[in-house]
């Protein structure tokens, strides 16, 4: 069931509240650093770590504050200083992923939450004409196609982890996730699908941006960087790229939060969620997990039921 993302009309007030709250936390010494966004060179917010109350004044919160910040916590594992972070609904899923994977201690966090009704895709907005862009960012109306893909199915507008909420929680309408792109691919002929995916691997330049941005790809040492064993050959070939994307998607199967950040940062524009969504869809169909993208205490591949479908029946 589709969602109807809208732009929050009170983002300027929220931004002011965010700066005030971050400045308070930093000046009172509650946190040593605050993770947020600042204005990037092309007007798109980029991740930013404020460490003084004055720097908190550079924080922004606007319809393009799409990048998730939770992954940056892994750069701050050393020491015991507290870290402040701002999250919206899906940003809190990314944070929860890191917490459920026990990669960062909850007690070292101060989470500032912002209920979110939708965020725009910076790339789609960048493609607009200057005046069009200004109109959209000022007061809409906004074409639903300009929102991030994840907003069209999101049913987690309110942060699932937070210490402070900057505005009132939004009403929640739960719906079953759907995977139209996977269904489309599944309907294809096997050969045709293999050919299509081969084209995808051939375009990949293995920049690892998808791995680096993924909140579920949070191992201490990544198998893709290992020499011994050499899981991934260094040669550039469709097979190695296939292996790369297989490893990436399989290792986050059951832990993927379906944020689509991998796709957003892909430097050659690959539809990477077509690989991740297949696992999410199968996990629902095979193991009856209704919303597999929501971090749970026990992940679907970290448990089993004696009554799981049997493999021998599958031939």
């Amino acid at each position, binding site marked *: 069931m589709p969602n109807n993302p809208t732009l929050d009309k009170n983002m300027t007030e929220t931004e002011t509240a965010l700066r005030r709250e971050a400045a308070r936390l930093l000046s009172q010494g509650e946190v040593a650093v605050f993770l947020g966004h600042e204005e990037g060179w092309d007007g798109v917010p980029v991740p930013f770590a404020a460490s003084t109350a004055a720097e908190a004044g550079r924080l922004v919160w606007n319809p393009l504050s799409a990048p998730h910040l939770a992954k940056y916590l892994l750069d701050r594992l050393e020491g015991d200083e507290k870290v402040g972070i701002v999250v919206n609904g899906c940003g809190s899923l990314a944070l929860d992923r890191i917490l459920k994977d026990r990669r960062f201690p909850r007690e070292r966090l101060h989470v500032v939450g912002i209920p979110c009704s939708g965020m725009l895709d910076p790339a789609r907005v960048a493609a607009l004409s200057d005046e069009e862009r200004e109109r959209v960012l000022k007061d809409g109306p906004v074409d639903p196609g300009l929102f991030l893909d994840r907003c069209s199915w999101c049913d987690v507008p309110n942060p699932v982890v937070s210490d402070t909420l900057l505005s009132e929680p939004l009403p929640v309408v739960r719906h079953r996730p759907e995977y139209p792109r996977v269904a489309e691919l599944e309907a294809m002929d096997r050969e045709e699908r*293999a050919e299509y995916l081969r084209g995808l*691997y051939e375009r990949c330049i293995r920049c690892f941006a998808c791995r680096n941005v993924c909140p579920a790809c949070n191992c201490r040492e990544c198998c893709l960087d290992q020499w011994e064993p050499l899981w991934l050959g260094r040669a550039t070939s469709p097979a190695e790229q296939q292996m790369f994307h297989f490893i990436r998607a*399989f290792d986050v199967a059951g832990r993927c939060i379906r944020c689509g950040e991998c796709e957003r940062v892909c430097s050659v524009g690959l539809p990477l969620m077509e690989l991740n969504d*297949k696992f999410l869809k199968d996990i629902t169909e095979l193991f009856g997990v209704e919303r597999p993208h929501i971090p749970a205490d026990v992940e679907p*591949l970290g448990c089993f039921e004696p009554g799981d479908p049997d493999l021998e029946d599958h031939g």
Partner: protein
Amino acid sequence: MAESAATPAESRPPGTAGTAVEKPPAGEETREWEPVIVGFLCNWCSYAGADSAGTARMVHPTNVRIVRVPCSGRVNPRFVLRAFQRGADGVLISGCHPGDCHYSTGNFYARRRLLLLKGYLEYLGIDPRRFRTHWVSASEGQKWAEVVRSMCEEVKALGPAPSLGNLV
């Protein structure tokens, strides 16, 4: 490297074609193509089961190259994709029956992973009949011989696996 399923074994790069030979030795011009099947067998049940099939002198095809693993839960799904990339025509994973795992639960976890893998391999374009999982206990030499025979026949009928564009 876009070969179709019907790629003849002779056109594959050397080293990936298993028992297929480009120039058959004299007197063997009509030697039939034989599939290469990689088998991951759990040490406690299926490996012993295959052994008992051998000691009982049960006749069954020799196409399965056996890799002994401590548990079906040891089989990383990457092993399977890599086997296909390096020229396997089929992959067979065999372990203890659910409930009989030497480590109590290893095969239950494996079952979830392999179920996902099965669907995914088809998604990637690999015929699901080329990837099979069976539960064979140490005493089931008969079943092992049966499994190998049926899988071998099936893969043989499918022909050589399509190339996945590997360099090697």
